[in-house]
């Protein structure tokens, strides 16, 4: 089967704001800043932009972004739902729009102001619940971490995953963040003892099994592969793209399916590899969505880097660590140690790896897998040089 978008578009510009907590700028302002930086990086004028793809959760709307940044006439715009599952989806939709001629220059972005009033953990809580929440929230399963911890406990029980395996994940990403001056945890090393004595959030998950809470924004610019050759940056080709809502899925609380440990990554991976010239064994660097540490072993299995139930053991012997690991993962620090901007920072690190500009650059890597949220309707990209 041939993919109609394989290598037909490229990411030619990236931009990001500073990451922090309690930034003054609004979410809309952060979005405009990141897009503006990405256009400068690409050497393209705002008036050339005619395509927009964003998270449905974005608070700055397309019209506001377009008139702030001074964009041209927009002929494609699309929004992807389900929060952390949307990042690669927004990039993929932008690529499909460019590849099919719906637009010529597309931007995809995520801006997030975690410290804003409406983003606070208990904002907009309704005491009477309909829909899927009524089956979990009344019993005190309140936060995303509780929802993932329920699956994590079962995964640990079924496949022998231990806290040491989860620590392997957290420690690898922290080490990468320590090498990345833009990472929130740049100057904060962590030891296994630090991890083991951290306070519980939702047992079996502790503080360091969780992502950061970050204000910030990131954006990418895409054009056709032909156009990309004439621009400032080394093009990073969008080789393959996939999305998935697996059958009978329930967002975050996937306990009601026949096999809750077969998450959205399994269905997403099938299409991604089908459309790709690369197999998992060819991939030497990955950016895997890490809102919570157990998502990493689940994703390693789903995307085919190891067999079912082998994801925890895969993390042993520094496998996820730069420079000597089998699969250096989240090489800028990821959501757990660089910044948590709904996973969009993983897209930019994938681009830097393919440009050769990562602070933990994997030599000779020809492709990079980037994934969005496991546990929600998701998406993934395979980028190549």
């Amino acid at each position, binding site marked *: 089967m041939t993919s109609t978008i394989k290598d037909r578009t490229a990411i030619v510009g990236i931009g990001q704001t500073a990451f922090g907590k309690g930034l003054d700028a609004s979410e809309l302002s952060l979005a405009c800043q990141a897009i503006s930086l990405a256009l400068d990086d690409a050497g393209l004028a705002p008036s050339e932009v005619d395509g927009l793809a964003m998270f449905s959760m974005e608070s700055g709307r397309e019209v506001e972004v377009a008139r702030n940044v001074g964009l041209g006439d927009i002929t494609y715009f699309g929004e992807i739902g389900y929060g952390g599952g949307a990042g690669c989806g927004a990039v993929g939709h932008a690529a499909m729009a460019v590849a099919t001629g719906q637009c010529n220059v597309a931007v995809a972005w995520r801006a997030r102001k975690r410290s804003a009033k409406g983003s606070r953990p208990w904002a907009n809580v309704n*005491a009477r619940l*309909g829909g899927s929440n*009524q089956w979990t929230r*009344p019993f*005190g*399963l309140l936060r995303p971490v509780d929802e993932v911890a329920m699956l994590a406990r079962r995964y640990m029980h079924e496949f022998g995953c231990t806290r040491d395996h989860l620590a392997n994940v957290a420690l690898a990403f922290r080490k990468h963040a320590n090498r990345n001056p833009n990472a929130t945890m740049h100057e904060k090393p962590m030891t296994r003892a630090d991890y083991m004595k951290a306070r*519980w959030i*939702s047992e079996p998950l502790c503080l360091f099994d969780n992502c950061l809470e970050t204000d910030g924004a990131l954006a990418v610019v895409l054009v056709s592969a032909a156009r990309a050759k004439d621009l400032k940056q080394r093009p990073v080709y969008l080789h393959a793209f996939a999305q998935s809502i697996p059958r*009978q899925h*329930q967002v975050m609380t996937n306990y009601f399916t026949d096999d809750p440990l077969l998450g959205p990554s399994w269905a997403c991976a099938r299409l991604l590899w089908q459309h790709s010239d690369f197999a998992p064994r060819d991939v030497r660097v990955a950016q895997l969505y890490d809102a919570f540490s157990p998502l990493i072993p689940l994703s390693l299995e789903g995307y085919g880097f190891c067999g079912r139930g082998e994801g925890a053991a895969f993390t042993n012997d520094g496998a996820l660590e730069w420079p000597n690991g089998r699969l250096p993962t989240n090489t800028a620090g990821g959501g757990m140690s660089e910044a948590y901007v709904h996973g969009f920072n993983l897209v930019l690190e994938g681009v830097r790896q393919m440009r050769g500009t990562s602070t933990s650059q994997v030599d000779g890597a020809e492709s990079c897998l980037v994934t969005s949220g496991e546990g929600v309707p998701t998406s993934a990209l395979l980028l190549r040089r």
Partner: protein
Amino acid sequence: MESAFLLPDPDDDDAADFWRGTARGELLVQTCAACGQRRIPPRPMCPACRSLQHRWDKLSGCGTIWSFVIAHPPLLPAYQALAPYNVITVALDEDPKLRLVGNLIARPDGAINEIDPATIRIGEPVRVVFQQVEDVYLPRWIVGRGQ
């Protein structure tokens, strides 16, 4: 009045009959009237045969612990006051692929923080009890099979 706990809307389109059942002390599961497939959570259409007709079957209320978490702060105030507390997922005896989220309690009127977390085991048999919170009866679970 500001409700301290998050509670289901007992008039929810798809789930009202479930919550009427718990108020009568019955654990009901939505069942397709055409093909007999049971489904949790309830929904308007049968994913096996697309029938819009369903009935509610009364189950034994017995199951086993499939997984559990122990929640610690930060939490909503009413829940934080009980923390650390357990939340369990129960696989129902009639079909272990039918699961419900609830809490393990020590006695029918017990609180969700009374069980020592170190004693909770995946695979442990449990049975349902119904606890009234405001106008809703929530299914919670007690270790063991007998009354």
